[in-house]
Structures are given as structure tokens and as C-alpha cells.
């Protein structure tokens, strides 16, 4: 499968202030790219543009690599909804429906296309339930399938969110600070799982992080985003003190 994510010249202003000033970024299938940058660098805005929760002002976003692939930045209406299904988003706060079971939360990844009466009666076809259980098994939570989401630990909740993305059969996974609310050991577990999923499913994974150690330990490439631009794009081994100083330096003038 060819594909991945290809962003060119992405620009976005919020309340008149430019936040993204021409971002170029590519993530290949099976690759985990860490997005590093100080808060306010535009990481979340970049994610929200790619997930099309907001509309970019300029630039293009291609999923699937080929020049013929539709430009996600320009899609609207039903075509946008359909294209968005191929994009999974994982959040810092996990964002599960708190009173639903882990299994039901995973099943929401398959909710589109389900007949309305089945949604109302909560009766998913057996094949869909099996797929959801398999996804929970993959993230190591099969035994917790029927536990309410708010009874799970933070790391477990993030794993359920990952399983939800898995059953959605995405080709791109965006994770916005997915481990910022987790302790170091749990965080490493979740990031390891993200990397495995990228490899197994040939999914392009873009993860924003604010800790260098995690980026070094788990990413195939590290992209530095500062003041709305890509400042460097390197393999983790190539990362040096100087790069980080540029990234986290106070804005000049």
C-alpha cells in the first residue's frame, strides 16, 4: 500500500494571528514521526487542520500519496466526512464516553454506516463486535472490555482510544500529546504500542510530544515546529543541542 500523509505550504491564522506559516511535512506509511515544539508553536492547530476540524487558509493535505489523491484541505460536505474516516485522532485527555464500556467506546469507530435501528438498540453485527474485541485484545485490554471507561486508568483509557482508531481502519493516525497526562512507565507503553501499530498496519503516525526523551526513544523521525514553521526534520540520532536551542529559544525581537 502506498500512501501516507503529504502536507505542503499549510497556512492558518486564528483570530487574525498567523499560527501556521507554510508547513511542509510528510509521513510515510508505517512511520512514526514525532512533532516537537514549545507550546504555542502550532502543533494542535496543525492537527486540527489535518483532521479538518478547522479549514486551512492555504496549502494542501494529501492522504494516500499519489498526485491524484483528493486534497483534504479543499474537501467539503459528504466527501469530507468520508475522507475524514481515514484519519484517526487521539487526544491528551483520551476523550472516551465516560459511562460507556470500553467495548462500546471502541465500537463507535464502526458507527458510521450502521443502520439507525441498530445504533438505537446497540446491536452491532457479530463481525463488528469481533473486530472491536480483536482491537481491544491488540491493545492488551480484552479482559476489561465490559468495564466502564471512567473506571479505567489513564493509560488504559488511552489504549481504548487507540483501539477505537484501529477498528476505524485509518490510514493516518494523529496523536496530540497522547502521553502528557500519563506517568513515564505508562507513557512508554502507549508510545511503544503506537509504534507497533504503525508498523503492523502500515499506518502513518504523527505524534506531538514535548519531551525529547520520548521522541528519541520511539520516533523514526523528529520534526521541530517553531513559530508556525518546520525548523528541522531529522532522524532521532541527528538531533543536537543546537536544534533544540533554536526550537525553544524565545522569539527574537
Amino acid at each position, binding site marked *: 500500500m502506498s500512501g501516507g500523509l503529504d502536507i505542503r505550504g499549510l497556512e492558518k491564522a486564528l483570530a487574525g494571528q498567523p499560527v501556521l506559516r507554510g508547513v511542509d511535512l510528510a509521513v510515510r506509511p508505517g512511520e512514526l514521526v514525532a512533532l516537537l515544539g514549545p507550546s504555542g508553536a502550532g502543533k494542535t492547530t496543525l492537527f486540527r487542520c489535518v*483532521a479538518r*476540524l478547522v479549514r486551512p487558509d492555504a496549502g494542501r493535505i494529501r492522504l494516500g500519496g499519489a498526485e491524484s489523491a483528493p486534497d483534504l484541505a479543499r474537501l467539503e460536505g459528504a466527501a469530507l*466526512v*468520508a475522507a*475524514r*474516516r481515514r*484519519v*484517526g*485522532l487521539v*487526544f491528551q*485527555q483520551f*476523550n*472516551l*464516553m*465516560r*459511562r*460507556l464500556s470500553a467495548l*462500546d467506546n471502541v*465500537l*463507535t*469507530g*464502526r*458507527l*458510521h454506516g*450502521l443502520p*439507525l435501528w441498530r*445504533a*438505537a438498540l*446497540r446491536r452491532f453485527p457479530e463481525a463488528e463486535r469481533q473486530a472491536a474485541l480483536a482491537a481491544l485484545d491488540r491493545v492488551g485490554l480484552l479482559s476489561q472490555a465490559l468495564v466502564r471507561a471512567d473506571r479505567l486508568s489513564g493509560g488504559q483509557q488511552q489504549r481504548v*482510544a487507540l483501539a*477505537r482508531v484501529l477498528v*476505524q481502519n485509518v490510514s493516518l493516525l494523529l496523536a496530540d500529546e497522547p502521553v502528557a497526562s500519563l506517568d513515564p512507565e505508562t507513557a512508554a507503553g502507549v508510545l511503544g504500542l503506537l509504534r507497533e501499530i504503525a508498523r503492523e498496519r502500515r499506518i502513518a503516525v504523527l505524534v506531538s510530544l514535548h519531551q525529547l526523551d520520548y521522541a528519541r526513544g520511539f520516533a523514526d523521525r523528529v520534526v521541530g515546529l517553531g513559530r508556525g514553521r518546520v525548523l528541522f526534520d531529522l532522524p532521532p540520532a541527528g538531533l543536537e543541542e543546537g536544534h533544540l536551542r533554536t526550537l525553544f529559544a524565545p522569539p527574537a525581537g
Partner: protein
Amino acid sequence: MGWLLLLGLAGFLGTCLWLVDASPARLAAGLPRLAAWTARGWPPDFSEWDALLLRAGETLAIGTLGTAFAGVLALPLSILAARPLTPSPLLRQPVRLLLDGLRGVDGFVFALLFVAAVGLGPFAGMLGVLLHSAGSIAKLWSEEIESADPGPLEAVAMTGAGRARIALFAVLPDRLPAMTSTLLYIWEFNVRASTVLGVVGAGGLGQELKAATDLLQFDRVFAILILVVLLVTGIDRLSALIRRRLA
């Protein structure tokens, strides 16, 4: 500024006093009468206990069915009125206007109209309760849906499912305990309100109450009031118990 405000408030309250035609002298004259009646009310007359119990049952039925049917009516209305779930913001405003209208007219007034339309009795009472509380329930439910954390909703929306599926599978089940608690609260309120619906001929204990006061049978009035208090506090306790379990 503060003085002016205080002066304005005093003027407003004074006007209100004049409007209600408040008269301490009349209160002083009336109190002994009330005391005499109360004295005549003892011992309470439960001789027709079977008729009274039937009326109490009617009151309970009016409040319960009125609330249940109102809930059925309120569910689609609350979805249309809730910002994250409504299929169109253009639809949301007229629906909210309708809900405010239903809430604005008391169940008592609706019952009065229904007595004229479908005749005397508890059926008219139930319809009145239903119409008024459908507005209240839908309004409260839509607010409960709107107060839900937007993050999980955004996450579910990202799966590309439509609003109807999201509402049915994810949002309503997640909000169900809060919504049930609201419904129970309205139920308590409606059983209490149904005790007086009989005054306009809409069935229940109120009907006996009106007949007894009209005939100055104060021992019977006393018996009815005891039943009202027992019924209302019983329902309040039961509802509070269930609501605690839901929390």
C-alpha cells in the same frame, strides 16, 4: 445610585401590596374562623376511605402517566433543541421557542382547556400535565446534553458517523443517569401538582377537596389533606432514593 435602587424597590413592593389589597384587619378577623374550622376538622373523617383512596390513586396516575408520556414526547424535542445534536441550527431556535411556550403555560391552565375539550375527569388532568412538563423536560434534557464535555463528542464525530447515530449510540446512553434523575424530579413535582388539578374538574384528590370545602365538611378536608401529605412525601422519598442510586 444605591439609594435610588432601594427607593425603586420600595416603590415596587408598595405597589404590589396595594395590588394584592393586603389588609391586616381582615387577616385578624379571618384567623379565628380558620381556627374554629380546624377545631371542627378533628377527628378527620375517613368514613369513605375507599372513595378517597381511589381519588389518591387517580392523582398518582395523572402525575405518573403525564410524566411518562411527556418524557416520550420530550426525547426527540430535546435532541432537536440541543446544540451538539440538532440536525440544523435553523430548527433549534423554533423548537426552543415551542418549549418555552409549553413551559410558560402552567399544567393547571392546560388541564382547564382539556376539561373543556375532552370532558371532566383525570384524563384531562393527565393531558394537561403532559403538555406542560414535555416542555420542561425537553428544556432540561437539552441543557444536560449541552453541558456534556465536548471532547468525547468531538472524538466520536471524528469517526465519521452522523449525528443521529452519535446521539443514539453514544451521547444519550452516556447522559442517561442525569436525564433519568431529571425525569424523576419532574415526576415528584407532577404528583404534587396533580393533588389540586381536581379543583378545575380534572380528577384526583383535588376533586374531593373542592367538594368538601364547598360543603364546609372540615373533618373530610382534614382527612384529604392528610392523604395529600402522605402521598406527596411518599413519592418524594421514593424518587430521592432512586436518584441517589443513579448518582
